[in-house]
């Protein structure tokens, strides 16, 4: 089997270690994400799901444990633009056009102007915003802005997408449309996705596996495999979908016995 998209083993994150205000955000967390796999992290606030995502992204260092991203250290992976990120806020730069927002990671990766422009237009076509390339972000709706942010996160053709509640600020209808779009894009590009969310239906609809986390200390309590063949609007009303939603909900309530002591070694995939 080829290298995993993300491999984390025995990861701890302790803020202010040794001080009076010490907080254990992640406690012995282990998780593997296979190539092309879609994994959601779900759990109540403070369960460490965003912290785990930031450790994978090398935005914060782990306290203990090993993390590999695309077979490299998180630091190398970040330096080599191996992952793309999207957040709850689209965080587009107001002073740049939509196209030049998508070009930003390419500029920083040292691409030349013509290649940058061509790639950005290609990505905007993928998120169906080609007609808005020369608009300013503030002229776009929230959903459109988030689509630009997704196009931007895919700019360097990364192995992995790390998403922190990217649809959290959108209305329900836009949100469902965006979910379909994300599934289509991740399938077309073969990108692995680690997706942080609060929403159970969203996690189930999108993921191959849903990783359930619990707070104080942040840890993985359950891993729910979701088997939903082709996902489309009908899927949202199918029995298999509701079964998985129920399974995740029960896991969140702690009604099912948690997986092994101190974290979960996840089943290998693909």
């Amino acid at each position, binding site marked *: 089997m080829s290298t995993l998209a993300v491999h984390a083993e025995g990861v701890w994150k302790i803020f202010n270690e040794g001080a009076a205000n010490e907080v254990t955000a992640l406690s012995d967390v282990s998780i593997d994400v296979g190539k092309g796999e879609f994994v959601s992290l779900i759990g109540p606030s403070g369960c460490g799901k965003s912290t785990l995502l930031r450790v994978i992204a090398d935005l914060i260092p782990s306290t203990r444990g090993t993390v590999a991203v695309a077979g490299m250290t998180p630091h190398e992976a*970040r330096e080599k*633009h191996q992952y793309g990120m999207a957040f709850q*806020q689209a*965080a587009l*730069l*107001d*002073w740049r056009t939509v196209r030049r927002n998508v070009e930003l990671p390419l500029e*920083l990766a040292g691409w030349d102007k013509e290649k940058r422009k061509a790639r950005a237009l290609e990505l905007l076509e993928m998120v169906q915003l080609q007609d808005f390339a*020369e*608009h300013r972000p503030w002229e776009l709706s929230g959903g459109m802005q988030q689509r630009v942010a997704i196009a931007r996160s895919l700019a360097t053709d990364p192995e992995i997408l790390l998403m922190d509640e990217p649809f959290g600020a959108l209305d329900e209808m836009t949100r469902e449309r965006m979910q379909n779009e994300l599934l289509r894009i991740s399938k077309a590009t073969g990108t692995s996705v680690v997706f942080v969310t609060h929403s159970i239906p969203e996690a189930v609809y999108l993921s191959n596996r849903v990783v359930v986390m619990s707070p104080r200390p942040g840890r993985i309590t359950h891993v729910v495999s979701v088997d939903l063949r082709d996902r489309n609007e009908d899927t949202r009303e199918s029995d298999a979908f509701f079964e998985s939603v129920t399974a995740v909900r029960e896991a969140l309530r702690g009604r099912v016995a948690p997986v092994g002591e101190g974290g979960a070694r996840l089943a290998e995939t693909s």
Partner: protein
Amino acid sequence: MAGATSTTGARLRRGAISLGWAVAGVLVAILLWEAVKVLGSIITLPFETSDQAMPHVWTIAAGALQPEVRGSDTPVWQTVLIAAIYTLVIAFGGFLIGVSVGLLLAIVMQRFAFLERGLLPFVIASQTVPLIALAPLIVGIGNRITIGPLEWGQTQSIMFIAAYLAFFPLSVGALRGLQAATPTQIELMRSYAATPRATLWKLRFPASIPYLVPALKVSAAAAVVGTVVAQISTGGRGGIGRLIIEYSRETTSQPAKVYVAVIGAIIVGLLAAGLVALLDLYLTRNLPKERLT
């Protein structure tokens, strides 16, 4: 969805409207001036409204056209205009130096938190030193500086004082601006492995514009005030400050003269504000209208 193309036209229209209001404001000021004089002739006001202290607007206008000294060809307005331009040039120099120093300070304070803690109190303390006390000190120290062919003269001292006043609002405003990028935007730049310099140019600096523009306006005004006051307190030749001093000694014979010089100083301030407004228009060309100050 707003059309991006109409923004320039809308801005010009807004500019024309502001100009109309400005002209109306000047007319109102003239009317008020005369009204106060009329009122002062009827009842007793707590201040002097005689033609000696408050000459009529037309007396001031006539005063501007009179020759500088008896028998000379140069009218007063011409002397004032030359002095005003000279003052504007010095103020502009002080503004440029002040803005450069202020920006540089803001950049290092943003980059190194310990410098913000260490420098900011001094930056604030620098402004509590009274300008009048500072001026002779700078002239005194400056007189002893010669770097090669460059000699520190009165002009340099005046420019220094203007810069000293101008750097402060800019450094404080720019520091806030450089810290205005959202945490998400900063994490995003980090996820791209952007260097601090790239983060500064591509994110922090453009994100600071809405804070920088008002800071530039205050700095420009400070540079003009600094120049005029420094010219008064150092007696710097050629500037509007010196003219105000000289003409105020002639109020008994020609009361209108000093007002001509004061109007000259006002024009310097307005020109400086106008230049900054143009800069503002350029800097904010890509930003949403709501952000405009």
